[in-house]
């Protein structure tokens, strides 16, 4: 028996439920192409692209905690106009959906960006949830009204599937997600990183040049599971689970909580190939076989009490 690993996600047909999370490939179209050649990968989200180019923060920008990571890259990217040209070249060279992550700071930027990027993307992921970037990300994404207006403006200019990526750094994530759903998003990606920091006890200073950064990896997985579960209870749109997926068990946990697909970010650290995706896919496959499920679709949200 070979369980069906294909998923349908807001109109995107994915050969595998595993998606490369935004940011972990930087702006390298070469990395996108390389990872797209891995059969266990179902789609790729680009690095979040902003209206203007950004160098990002000075080093240090990353901390390895063992049980997770901190990063404060500061959304480095060449800006949407420049990146559009690179994506145009890439587009025909890859066989899986390309989800372009955009980080507008207001409705006007959102509109211009999607208009320009429509042709080079299969879907958009609206990132209003970066916890360590002024005026972008969380400053916008924690205010339901701003989320509603930016989402509406994005929706107006694209008919491509539209995802919103939500932050765990808010009192009520369902409220934010609901605002986005009402404004027209097709699916929700949960979660982005948690605002955190590290101090080196010998240097006696914050490690990150930006002081604050985002916590990702193993440490945030139980928070991701909770938020996916809450969103699944409250809303009707599909959910993409993201946060601390290192192995098949982590992925299954999020799917049972209600995720239709899974993003993998930090777990690619240190790996000089992308075998992690093959390992996770094999584990998920074996799990479905052992439990007698014919398709990954059969277990989505199964942990909800009835």
């Amino acid at each position, binding site marked *: 028996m070979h369980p069906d690993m294909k998923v349908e996600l807001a109109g995107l047909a994915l050969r595998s439920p595993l998606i490369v999370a935004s*940011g*972990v*490939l*930087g*702006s*390298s*179209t*070469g*990395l*996108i*192409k*390389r*990872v797209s050649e891995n059969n266990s990968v179902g789609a790729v989200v680009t*690095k979040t692209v902003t209206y203007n*180019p*950004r*160098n*990002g923060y*000075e*080093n*240090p*920008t*990353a*901390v*390895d*905690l*063992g*049980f997770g*990571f901190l*990063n404060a*890259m500061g959304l*480095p*990217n*060449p*800006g949407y106009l*420049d*990146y559009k040209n*690179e994506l145009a070249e890439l587009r025909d060279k890859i066989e899986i959906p390309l989800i372009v992550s955009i980080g507008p700071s207001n409705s006007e930027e959102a509109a211009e960006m999607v208009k320009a990027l429509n042709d080079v993307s299969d879907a958009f992921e609206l990132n209003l949830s970066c916890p360590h970037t002024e005026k972008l990300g969380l400053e916008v994404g924690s205010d339901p009204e701003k989320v509603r207006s930016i989402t509406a403006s994005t929706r107006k200019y694209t008919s491509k599937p539209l995802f919103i990526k939500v932050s765990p750094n808010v009192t009520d994530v369902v409220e934010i997600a609901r605002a986005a759903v009402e404004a027209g998003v097709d699916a929700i990606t949960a979660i982005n990183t948690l605002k955190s920091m*590290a101090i*080196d*006890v*010998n*240097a006696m*200073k914050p*490690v990150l*040049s930006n002081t604050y950064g985002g916590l990702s990896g193993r440490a945030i997985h139980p928070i991701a599971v909770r938020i996916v579960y809450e969103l699944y209870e409250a809303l009707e749109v599909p959910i993409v689970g993201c946060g601390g997926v290192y192995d098949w068990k982590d992925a299954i946990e999020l799917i049972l909580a209600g995720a239709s697909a899974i993003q993998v*970010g*930090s777990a*690619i*650290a*240190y*790996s*000089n190939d992308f075998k992690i995706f093959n390992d996770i896919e094999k584990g998920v496959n074996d799990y479905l076989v052992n439990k007698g499920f014919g398709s990954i679709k059969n277990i989505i949200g199964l942990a909800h009490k009835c």
Partner: protein
Amino acid sequence: MFGKLHYYVEAEVVRNISETSRVNTLVLKLGQCMDIKPGQFLMVWRPSDGEIPITPSLTQEDTVCLTIEKVGFTSSRLAGLKAGEKIFLRGPYGNGFNLEYPGKYLLVGGGTGAASLTPAYLKLVEKGVQTLFLVGGRNSDNLVYVNKLRELKANIRIATDDGSLGFHGTLPEFFKEIIAESFFENVLTIGPEKMMVKIAEECHRNGIRCQVSLVRIVKCGIGFCGSCALDPVGLRVCVDGPVFNAEEILGTDFGAYMRNEAGRRVEVTL
């Protein structure tokens, strides 16, 4: 069990040796031993000065040397540190050189490259492998680590662009002459990228196995930010490299394009 809770290894500057007007070597005493393979690199941090990747020029238990060219803010600040000052190291990162290939090794170092090749040289000596070390610079005042290499009894040949010492010409020109004189099965090279690509092409034409150590903008150092990618092949300098078999990357952006800090593709100038 739960990872690197110290985050960084603290290191104290024991001595600052001026190599040239632009290059200094810091001799560091580590608070904790690090096991660094030749060609692997460290992320070197000093609060408020920043953090940059450096391939050490000596790695002996709790002593590490960093040979740093002052090219911008952080490198200049680090290169100017005095004895007693503290810096912080994380790593080692990356793959390092493969020194298991049989045959003789020709080491080609431009700029600080000669220094960064020294741990590989020492390892090869330890293994009883025959080596020749080519060191190049604009002029005789620009040569890095030559005295140290002499001290270490390396078999050195020098090239200067202005002919003020050794061969009159560039390292790639000199390299051509040398391999015409005597064949080497292996080349290891660190230096300006334009130089390395010429060496690599020459090796390709002559059937020599060539390993190059690449520089790209390294931010995380651990493979999850994509900043250091070599396109269009999508290799990450920090985890797939920094050392590559030249054959694998000839015909890519190697020697031609890199990404700047914003991830924009720009021309390689040096």
